[in-house]
């Protein structure tokens, strides 16, 4: 057991740090949940991609560096420590791409991955429906067979990035009468500007149009945009869902950097006699370190050929609660300034805590609610009996 970086990993860290020091914008970009901010972040993706930093773990042929899982973690640590911009391409890069690597055809990979890596095509996730949040098996939007492809009908909602994105991926019911609800689903990609698609932005809790609902009226999708076998969408999607909850969506670097900023804020502002607040700062620091180390252990297992199953649910619950604790503690340290939005004239110069707090509140809700995750942990990791349903 050791925590020592290999020479190659140390060199990778140095290279990443140097590149980020030279390229990270001096001023924060405008919020990526606005039209102007979305465009600025798309340009940032292109800048990353130009030097092959946008998708370090991908094969070189698609713009990556063939980086190992450890190197990806190192890159993320450096990325967040450098205060680099949020990733507008993350839905595609973290959720769709792993699915394509596992289930996509060579033609799909060749067509989709390159423009995804450069930010030329930004992807939105279209999983949820008004009647289907964490219970994806209750999806109702349909894919109906037609010559050379499928017609999509129905409604998707709370679709992240869809207000400004180019394309979306999601699950559709292609066989209406299957014995079990997670059968007969098909995984498809579609353009958001196709005939029949109506995109209606929905304000998030902070009022920014980060979500959209999508109305699909006989939207044609060719067979070449089906991922995996028609009717097997559930199985295909589950590999993506595991990625979302597990490692790729919330790398530890994000929380380590936030814990550093929180500690600095505490040293700068806190009353040393307020031990209750001090304890919360320490717990956030300990939590961020625990998450980093837990991920190193998982990465070590994956490097030896194991796979993560229900264990990814442990991550999901832990990081989502850690994220809220970090940001709530920061808001408390800020006192009256904690009530300001980040773009207020009098917002603290080290800013970002308000947006971060709002975003953290979504953590226990999305990617399968934490209630669902706790059921998975209890049933699959602890072996407790299934809940009586229905």
């Amino acid at each position, binding site marked *: *057991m*050791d*925590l*020592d*970086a*290999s020479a190659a*990993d140390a060199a990778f860290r140095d290279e990443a740090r140097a590149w980020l020091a030279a390229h990270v914008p001096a001023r924060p970009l405008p919020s990526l949940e606005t039209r102007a901010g979305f465009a600025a972040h798309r340009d940032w993706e292109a800048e990353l991609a130009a030097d092959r930093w946008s998708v370090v773990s991908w094969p070189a042929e698609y713009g990556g560096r063939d980086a190992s899982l*450890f190197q990806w973690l190192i890159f993320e640590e450096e990325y967040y420590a450098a205060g680099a911009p949020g990733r507008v391409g993350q839905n595609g890069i973290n959720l769709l791409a792993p699915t394509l690597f596992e289930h996509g055809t060579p033609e799909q990979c060749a067509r989709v991955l390159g423009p995804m890596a450069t930010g030329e095509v930004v992807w939105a996730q279209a999983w949820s429906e008004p009647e289907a949040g964490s219970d994806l098996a209750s999806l109702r939007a349909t894919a109906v067979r037609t010559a050379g492809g499928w017609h999509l009908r129905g409604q998707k909602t709370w679709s992240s990035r869809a207000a400004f994105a180019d394309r979306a991926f999601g699950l559709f019911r292609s066989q209406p009468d299957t014995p079990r609800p997670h059968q007969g689903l098909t995984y498809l990609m579609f353009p958001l500007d196709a005939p029949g698609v109506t995109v209606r932005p929905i304000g998030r809790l902070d009022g920014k149009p980060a979500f959209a609902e999508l109305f699909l009226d006989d939207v044609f999708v060719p067979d070449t945009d089906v991922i995996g076998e028609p009717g097997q969408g559930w199985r295909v999607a589950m590999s993506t869902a595991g990625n979302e909850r597990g490692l790729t969506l919330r790398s530890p670097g994000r929380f380590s950097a936030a814990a550093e900023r929180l*500690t600095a804020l*505490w040293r700068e502002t806190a009353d040393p006699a307020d*031990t209750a607040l*001090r*304890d919360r*700062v*320490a*717990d956030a*620091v*300990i*939590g961020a*370190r*625990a*998450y980093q*180390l*837990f991920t*190193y*252990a998982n*990465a*070590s*297992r994956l*490097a*030896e050929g194991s796979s993560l199953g229900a264990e990814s649910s*442990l991550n999901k*619950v*832990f990081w989502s609660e850690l994220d809220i604790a970090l940001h709530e503690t920061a808001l408390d340290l800020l006192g009256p300034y904690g009530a300001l939005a980040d773009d207020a004239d009098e917002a603290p110069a080290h800013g970002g805590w308000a947006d971060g707090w709002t975003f953290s509140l979504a953590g226990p809700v999305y990617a399968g609610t934490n*209630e669902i*995750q*706790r*059921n998975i*942990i*209890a*049933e699959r*990791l*602890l*072996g*407790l*009996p*299934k*809940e*009586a349903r229905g």
Partner: protein
Amino acid sequence: MRFLLTDEQRDFARTLDALLGASGTPAAVRSWAAGDHKPGRDLWARLAEAGVFALAVPEEHGGLGPLPLELTVAFIELGRHAVPGPLVETAAAAAFLHRMGDAEAATAWLPRIAAGDALVGLCPDGAPFALDADATDTVLVVRDDTVCRTGTHGPVQPALDPARRLARPLGGTVLARGPAVTAAARHATDLARLLTAAQALGLGRALLAGTVDHVGQRTQFGRAIGSFQAVKHRLADTLIGLEFAQPLVYAAALALAADAPSAGAEAAAAKAAAGEAGYAAARTALQLHGAVGYTDEPDLSLWIRKARPLRDAWGTPAECRARVLAE
């Protein structure tokens, strides 16, 4: 980087688990609590034979170590089985004696610790009580930059966990004085925090496993109570607490093994997290066992009573949290 135990380390843990499982440990705990140390000392001798105490002692004094990571692996198992006695104190005393720079004291005690012949108490500066002073062969008491050795103590005080017997050390002769004592005591405290964290982690694992078994069998309203979501979620949270404390414990062991400048903060972080996780596991176990959990007769009580003292020994969570932010 390979942040996983080796097969050898896992085998060592399994061996100790099997040894302690077959040794009637709960009966030894009850005897220890009643002041009869014989079964506990027999257990101690078997642990010494398996090499546990030698891991705390350097080779030049008849040991195998110091090997903080292997000691940690062992102490997780000692915690899993709620083994009684000044285990942490003896291992920390070995670290203290090795670093203090008094060759005579080191030569006198370290080989005996390695062989399992000596139980040694260690009272850091400010600690009023010595653990199991009625069972130890000697107690080292640190006050400011001075360390004394004593064989006498005040009356054993009734305690939350009767198997952790607390008494004031009395009198004593000065062994050494100066900055070397302070530095050795600081290192010994870091190691004691690490090993207490490991015990708390093992204790929590045992409490969780026992509770999972119980809720799978116990039926109410016509169903196993483990099928109820409120029960499941509490156990899931207990597992999360333990799972995320564990890597902190291993990382602190690596930091101590490397004598890294971060070792003190890492040991404190491990202690805070594992102490809280172990105590939370005890609270969950009590709640989900219902009235059974509130009774003394089942062995479960031996584990439940230990969780709170382990959480607070060698630095309360608040002290450990302050240490994490101290640099």
